[in-house]
Structure formats: C-alpha cells, structure tokens
C-alpha cells in the first residue's frame, strides 16, 4: 500500500483509462487491417480486452487504503443522508452545540481558574512558603498576605533549598493628585521577583535588586495593558515622572502581555519595588506572599523540611511587639511549609471552585438530556428507515457495515455539534467572565483555548456520539429484513421492544430534568433570599465613601478636627439626609477585630469607630442606653455600644449597660477600658451570610491610632451616583488635595453576590433548557407511539370509542412515564442536593416546597407535551386510518 498512490489514485485512474483507450485503438486498427469492417473491429477489440470498467476498478482498488476508503464513503453517504433531512440535522447539531458549548465554556473557566499554570518560566518549580494552618488572625492581614516582611527577610537570608526567592504583595494605590487621583492595582515586589520568575521585559527593563533601595520608590514597571491604555504605548524610561501616592516615580519598563502578576483573575497595573523605610519594618502586618524557585532536582518535600527546620529561629527572631504572652507563645510555635505555586494564587478559586464544578455537573446533565433526545430521534428515524436497512441487508451488506454507517451519521452530527459548540463556548466563556466582574473588581482571565479545553471538548464529543449513536445503530441493524419489508412501515406488529428503549430515554430525560429544575429553583430561591435578606441596617439610598488626606500635609493633631470638617462639608451637600464616618464599611468583606476581656472572660469582638450620626444614618436602632454624641470626645470616658450577641456571649444575658470591657493590647492599640453605654440589635457584620459575631462600636474621637483617612456612610434621597458626584465637586473646590471615592452601598453588596448570581442565572437557564428538551422528547415519543398505533386507534374509534377515552388512553401512557421519571428524579435530586447544601442560603437542599414545585412544573409541561399528540389521535378519521392498510 502506497500513500503516494493513494493520494494520486484519481490521476492514475485517468492514466490507465488513456492507456486502455490506446489499446483499444491499436487493436481496432489491427482488426481493420485484418479486413474487418470498422464497427465490428471496435466490438472485437472490446471483446478481446474484456470489461474496461472492471479493469479500472481493479486498479483503482489497488490504489486505495481499504478502511480509509470505506470510512470516507460512510461519511460522505452520512452527509448526503443528513442533507436530505435538514430539519433533523439542524435540531441535532443545535442541541449538541448548546450542550457542548455550555460544558466547554464552564470547563474553560475552570481551566483558567484552577488548572492553568502561570505564564512564567518552568512554573512547576515555584513554591510558596506559608504558615501551616495560617496565622490565626494575628495582626493585620492583607489580601494574599501570608507572612510579614521581617519573616521574609530571615527566609531570604537563611534558605538554601531555593535557587531564588521573592516576596510580593498587592494593594490598591493612587496615581495623580487630589481629586484628579485614580486607583491603580499595585504589585509590590522584591528586587529578584522578575529574575526568579524568568519574565522578560516587553519594553525597557524590569525591576532589579538595585531598585530595592531606600524609600521613596523611584522606579516602577507597568503591565502591558496599563501601558497601552494609560500611557498610550509611549516608550518607557525617558525620564518622565508619574506621581504615585506622594512620590515621583519613573516608569522604566513594560511586562509582556501574558504576564498578569501572581494572582489569577486580577491584573496589576504598576509593579513597584519594596523600599527600605527609615523606621523598622512592622512585624504585625502580614502583607507578603513569599515564593521561591526550587533548585533543579530539589523537591517540595525537601523545601518543606528545610522551612520546618528553619521555623523556630525565624519566629523567635520576629515576634511582634506589644502582644500578650499567650499570642507570643502561639506565634513562636508557628511552622512554615512549602506549597506548590505553579498556578499562582487566586481568590476566585475559593469563591468559584464549588459553583463551577457544580455548574459543570449541571451542564453535563443538560448534555445528557440532549443526547437522550437525539437518541430518541435516531431511533425514530431508524424505524422509518427500516425498509432501507432491510434492502441493504438483503443486498448483502453486513450488519457491522450497517452499524458503521449509522455511527458515521452520529459521528458527523457529534463533530458538527462540537465544532459549533466550541465556537459558541468562546463567546459564552467571555460572557461568564464578564458576569464575574463587578465594578469594584474586574476579573481578568485567560480563557484562550488550550490543549486541556480541546481535549475536553473532544472527549465530550466522543461521549455524546457514543451516548446517542451506538444504541440506535445496534438496534437498527438487528431488524429481520424479510419482516421489515413485509411490514412496510405500517404494521401493527412492531414489537414493544423498540418502544421500551424510547420509553427508557424519556424516563431518563424526565428524571434528569427534574434534578435540573430542582437545582434551578433552589439556586434562584437562594439568590432571592439573599437579595431580599434584611441585614439589620439600611441598604438603599446609602453611599459608601472614602476620604484620604495624606497629600494635604496636615499635622497629626489636626486630623480629628479635619475629619469633622470634611464630614460637615458632606452633610451640608444638598440631598444628603445624614452622614457619619466609620473605620469600616459593613457588609463589604473587610474585618477589624480586637481581643477583649469582660470581667474574667476573654474573647474577640469586631470593633468599629464611628461618628455620632452612624446609627441614625444606617437605620440601626439603639435598643438600650444611648448612641454616641458630640460629648464623647478624645478626653472623656471611653464608651462603647455593643450588639446583642456581645451581651449574650460575654455577659450571659445580664444588662450590658454600665459594664466594662477591656481590649487586649496590640501595637498602637494599648489595652483600654470601655464602658458600655448602649446596645444595638444584631446586624450582619461583613457579609450577608455569616453568623453575627460580637460587635463593639466606639466613638471616632476615641480611635487610638487614627490615620489621615476615613470611611463614610451617607444617607441621601438622591441616587448614590449623583450624591457622590455632588460631594466630589464640593470637596474638589474646597479641599483639592483630598482623595475622594464613593460607591453605591447596595450595589456593592449585590456585587458581592456575583457567585450566587452566576449560579442562579446559569442553573435557571439550564433548568429551563432541560425542561424544554424534556418536553420536546416526550412530545416526540408520544407522537411516535400514536403514529405507530394509528391503525389500532382507528379500529377503536370505528368500534365507537369516545374521543375522551382515546385521549385518556394516550395520556395514561405518558403519565406512567412521567410518574416513573419524577420518582427517579426526586431520588436523584435528594442525592445530588448534598453537594449544593453549602451554597444555599435560607433553604435546605431537600426543601419540600421546591421539590413539589419542580415536580408540578414538570408534570404540567409533560401534560402539555402529550396532550397535543393525544388529541391528534382522538381526532383521527377511522376511515383514513383503516384505509391505509
């Protein structure tokens, strides 16, 4: 067998045809020369030669690769067959495209969030050093911050197992001045960061160890996207300075387009080197993530062992000051270990891991329903094509060849569906990423196709093809040709067997749809519960704000008064009904906690320092005692308002008013005694779902270590966007150096529900799709059964059966399928519900109302789907049905 011949077989065929023609010419000429008349001469030549077509065919076959040729034939024939029934092909390809597209899109997201490696050199060599079990909330914790900078210093100096180490942290900072100021996503790195990662500059140069000099920072590099959008692609390193925070910084380079930093889903704007401050580094701020590249041949286990061995020395040398002995003891017993870091870090992983796997499962079930539907269609087609198959079998086709022929049709459908599905997935995953993004945090994911996604899609295609193709193909090839030819497609004798397979498919569809409907209802209701949940405070009409005045160069003793002046400006803005300062916005994820002693009890409480109008602004009633007033000053008695949980937990229900609580000392926060003067009801703390912790509020004037900034909560009767803009204008005119940010509080809260929204949206969509597919499936099967029983129904009608009875007869059949499907589906829902439990809010996965609603909905859909063919059966003209015979 020669591939060259195979490829040139058509050419050879023509060549041989010419050769044969030449033979015939020569022989004819010879015959004429022998004295034959021309016509007879030509005929004699042909006789002498034999059958030219057979000869050509024989040569052609010599040039072919058998299986390839017949596969190609099968596929071409399948394409022709499918072209003959475009309706069927369209429905099949579309439903597959939807199924495969949804699965692939969700898998793309999973791939991007969970499976993809960082775009750096040999990412599998990277390891992150973390405290085993975390730091138990000690000190100040920043996003992705696992260790303090002093700890990093010791690791860097002592470790031998890594060929290079680096520390990094992310933080939002500001470029520009005052009201002109804008946020940027800062990536703070040690000098070795880019070298150890092996990232090459796109333009200019990247940061080097010598950039890690004394504060303030003088050099920085920007990400590719920031460079394009904010710097207009201007060549870096020309000496132009940009103002960042308060310092003039020169941009010296641009990172490559694919590099987004170390956290998947986030994109950094500007990378700056850590700088050496004059004062000693803080030992209580857990702000950096420390990573290293393993030496060639080294392993994670060896790195962990070394980190563990180094731990006692490291923690002994970096004890945070001003801590109580117990925390110090705990701190000294921390142990370090190395963890794989090839995929970087990501907050998306925690929030979306479960939802995405669950959605993948749901999308898989939708695909299963689509396959069951297709299998049904194929079965129905097979029975109408029984005659064709019978003829082929009778003419000598082998059953295997017939199966192959039918599988070729399925394969073609699966391939076309998958191709469309992949195309669809590209836009779908874009929509998904977009729906994860909120105003505050845009999500940036690389969902480009990679081998994993393509492998996944191909796997799905093969599975679907097997799922909907094999059974009908096997079934179709088993017909007895003689019986099929005789029956001629209108017999009453078609066995129940074929029906039973279709019934099985419908039962599967109904039960799986029920599972999906239950999931959809659960997630939609859960989301609704969250949306309508009362957190115990005002949400709508509230604007959350942030004011920063570190560019104003005010002396520290002026800060408190200045904050009051700024608050007065805000309150005087038209439309503002009330406003207060706070150290912490509720419900938006951030947390502030101190240890407390109440009598002999010790525990933790959340702490918030607020100005007097806070409870009024937020609509939180003070149910006992009083709120704060202007008389609570920096010099008066320290007072506090606590929530009910605080009283329940630490005062065992006794009246909190007049009781004292003492904070446990921390750096900058000396141990202080507060007298409880008021009680508020329990409100949610930093998210909607959590259990309310003990909470303490204290007057802003008594905040121990204030900074040149404050949070704001504003209640207005104008829309937050308008109020924010008005206040911004007012402050820009009077205090141009003050950094001002506002956001719609309610919208911020809802943005936090993005994972729940995604779940509700997608599971709702899939549930609806499943119900639709189940309806189509049931309709198809009932119609088919009715068509097959046409003759029988005709006789019944002719013998005087009433229309109603015929309808009832057909519907009873459908109802049986429905009952079995719903019973199985309910059981499956209860089993599957367990995996969804933790994602639900305010209801249980076995919520009976939801189960009942889903069952009823499905029953209604099924009734509608089977009523149409049932009525058609009842309106049958018996004469027509019987005359057919």
């Amino acid at each position, binding site marked *: 067998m020669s591939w060259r011949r195979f490829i040139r077989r058509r050419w050879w065929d023509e060549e041989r045809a010419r050769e044969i023609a030449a033979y015939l010419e020569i022989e004819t*000429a010879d015959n004429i020369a022998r004295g034959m008349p021309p016509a007879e001469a030509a005929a004699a030549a042909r006789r002498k030669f034999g059958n*030219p077509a057979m000869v050509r065919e024989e040569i052609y076959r010599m040039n072919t690769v058998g299986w390839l040729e017949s596969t190609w034939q099968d596929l071409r024939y399948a394409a022709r067959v499918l072209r003959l029934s475009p309706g069927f092909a369209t429905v099949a390809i579309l439903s597959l495209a939807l199924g495969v597209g949804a699965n692939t899109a969700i898998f793309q997201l999973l791939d991007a969030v969970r499976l993809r490696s960082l775009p750096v050199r040999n990412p599998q060599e990277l390891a992150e050093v973390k405290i085993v079990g975390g730091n138990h909330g000690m000190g100040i914790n920043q996003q992705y911050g696992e260790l303090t900078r002093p700890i990093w210093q010791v690791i860097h100096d002592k470790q031998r197992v890594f060929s290079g180490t680096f520390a990094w942290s992310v933080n939002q900072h500001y470029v520009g001045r005052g009201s002109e100021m804008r946020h940027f996503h800062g990536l703070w790195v040690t000098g070795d960061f880019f070298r150890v990662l092996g990232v090459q500059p796109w333009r200019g140069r990247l940061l080097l160890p010598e950039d890690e000099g004394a504060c303030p920072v003088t050099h920085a590099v920007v990400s590719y996207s920031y460079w394009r959008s904010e710097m207009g692609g201007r060549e870096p390193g020309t000496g132009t300075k940009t103002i960042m925070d308060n310092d003039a910084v020169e941009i010296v380079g641009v990172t490559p387009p694919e590099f987004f930093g170390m956290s998947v889903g986030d994109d950094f704007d500007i990378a700056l080197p850590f700088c050496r401050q004059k004062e000693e580094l803080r030992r209580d701020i857990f702000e950096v993530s420390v990573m290293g590249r393993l030496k060639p041949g080294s392993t994670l286990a060896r790195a962990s062992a070394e980190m563990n061995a180094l731990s006692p020395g490291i923690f002994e040398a970096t004890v945070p000051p001003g801590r109580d002995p117990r925390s110090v003891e705990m701190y000294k017993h921390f142990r370090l270990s190395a963890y794989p870091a090839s995929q970087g870090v990501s907050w998306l992983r925690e929030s979306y891991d479960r939802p995405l796997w669950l959605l993948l499962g749901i999308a898989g079930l939708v695909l299963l329903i689509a396959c069951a539907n297709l299998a049904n269609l194929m079965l129905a087609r097979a029975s109408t094509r029984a005659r064709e198959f019978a003829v082929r079998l009778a003419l000598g086709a082998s059953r295997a060849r017939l199966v192959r022929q039918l599988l070729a049709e399925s394969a073609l459908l699966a391939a076309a569906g998958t191709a469309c599905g992949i195309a669809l997935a590209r836009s779908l995953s874009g929509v998904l990423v977009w729906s994860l993004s909120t105003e505050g945090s845009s999500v940036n994911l690389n969902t480009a196709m990679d081998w994993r996604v393509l492998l996944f899609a191909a796997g799905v295609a093969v599975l679907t093809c097997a799922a909907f193709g094999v059974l009908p193909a096997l079934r179709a090839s088993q017909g007895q040709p003689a019986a099929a030819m005789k029956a001629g497609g209108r017999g009453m004798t078609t066995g129940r067997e074929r029906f039973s397979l279709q019934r099985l498919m419908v039962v599967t569809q109904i039960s799986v749809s029920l599972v999906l409907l239950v999931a959809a209802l659960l997630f939609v209701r859960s989301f609704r519960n969250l949306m309508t949940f009362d957190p115990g405070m005002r949400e709508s009409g509230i604007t959350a704000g942030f004011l920063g005045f570190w560019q104003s160069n005010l002396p520290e003793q002026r800060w408190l008064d200045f904050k009051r002046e700024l608050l007065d400006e805000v309150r005087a803005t038209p439309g503002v009904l009330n406003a207060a300062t706070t150290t912490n916005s509720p419900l938006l994820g951030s947390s502030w906690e101190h240890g407390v002693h109440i009598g002999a009890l010790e525990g933790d409480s959340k702490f918030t320092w607020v100005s007097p109008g806070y409870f009024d602004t937020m609509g939180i009633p003070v149910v006992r005692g009083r709120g704060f007033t202007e008389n609570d000053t920096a010099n008066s008695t320290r007072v506090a308002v606590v929530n009910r949980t605080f009283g329940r937990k630490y005062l065992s229900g006794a009246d909190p008013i007049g009781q004292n609580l003492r904070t446990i000392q921390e750096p900058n926060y000396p141990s202080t005694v507060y007298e409880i003067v008021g009680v508020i009801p329990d409100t949610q703390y930093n998210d909607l779902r959590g259990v309310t912790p003990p909470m303490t509020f204290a007057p802003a004037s008594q905040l121990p270590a204030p900074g040149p900034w404050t949070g704001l909560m504003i209640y207005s009767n104008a829309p937050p966007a308008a109020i924010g803009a008005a206040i911004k204008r007012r402050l820009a005119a009077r205090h141009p150096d003050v950094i001002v940010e506002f956001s719609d509080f309610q919208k911020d809260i809802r943005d936090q529900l993005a994972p729940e929204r995604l779940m509700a949206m997608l599971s709702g969509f899939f549930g609806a799709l499943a119900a639709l597919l189940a309806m189509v499936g049931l309709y198809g099967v009932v119609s088919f059964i009715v068509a097959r029983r046409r003759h029988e129904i005709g006789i019944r009608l002719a013998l005087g059966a009433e229309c109603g009875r015929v309808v009832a007869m057909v519907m009873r059949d459908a109802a049986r399928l429905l009952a079995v499907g719903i019973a199985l589906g309910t059981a499956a829902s209860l089993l599957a519900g367990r995996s969804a439990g933790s994602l639900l809010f305010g209801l249980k996965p076995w919520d009976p109302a939801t189960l009942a609603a889903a069952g009823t909905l499905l029953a209604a859909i099924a009734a509608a789907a089977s009523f149409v063919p049932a009525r058609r059966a009842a309106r049958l003209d018996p004469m027509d049905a019987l005359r057919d015979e």
Partner: protein
Amino acid sequence: MGKKPTQTDILQGTLDMLILQTLAPGPAHGHTIAYAIERRSEDVLQVEHGSLYPALHRLEERGWIASFWGTSENNRKARYYRLSAAGRKQLRAEMSRWERVVRAVNRVLRPAEE
C-alpha cells in the same frame, strides 16, 4: 494490497513472470505484451487482455518495471513498459522458483521416470 496469499497467487505470480520475461528483450506496450504472451505460448495461455493491466500496474508499483508514453509501430500513442534492474533480478528469482516448482510437480507426477 494483496498481502494475503490467495489461490490466485501462483497464477498471478506466473502472469507477473511472463510479463517480465516478455519485457526482457526491450520495452513494449500493453497490446504487444498481450499478443506476445499469447503467441509464444502457442495460444495455450489465453489471457483476457484487460487483466494484463492490473498486473502491469502492480509490477510498476513494486518498481520492477517503469513506464513512459511513446509512439507505436503504426504511429499511435501507447504506454511503453521497460524492465528495471530490480525487475531483472525479480525475473531471475521467479524463473528459478518456477523451475523448482515444475521439477517438483514433475517428480510427483512421474516418479518412475526419475
């Protein structure tokens, strides 16, 4: 194809050998080859002339003969075949094999004469 030994293998092999032998003196086209085989076997070996062509195709594919378009004795275009070096070797091998077979068959058929 044709890897599997079949009943026609011997006949096919024989036809191959006859073609190769016919081409031994010099190039010829299909028509000539067919008549040459017929004539030389004194019309005992009647081949359907068409069946020659698949054999020619197979021999060419194996590299034993090469072909080119030429002009026939009476000025018609025809495809000529010529023996390649490999074909010559193959012809010798086939002939010796054939002789062995013929001797063996003869020995079986006429043991007395041995």
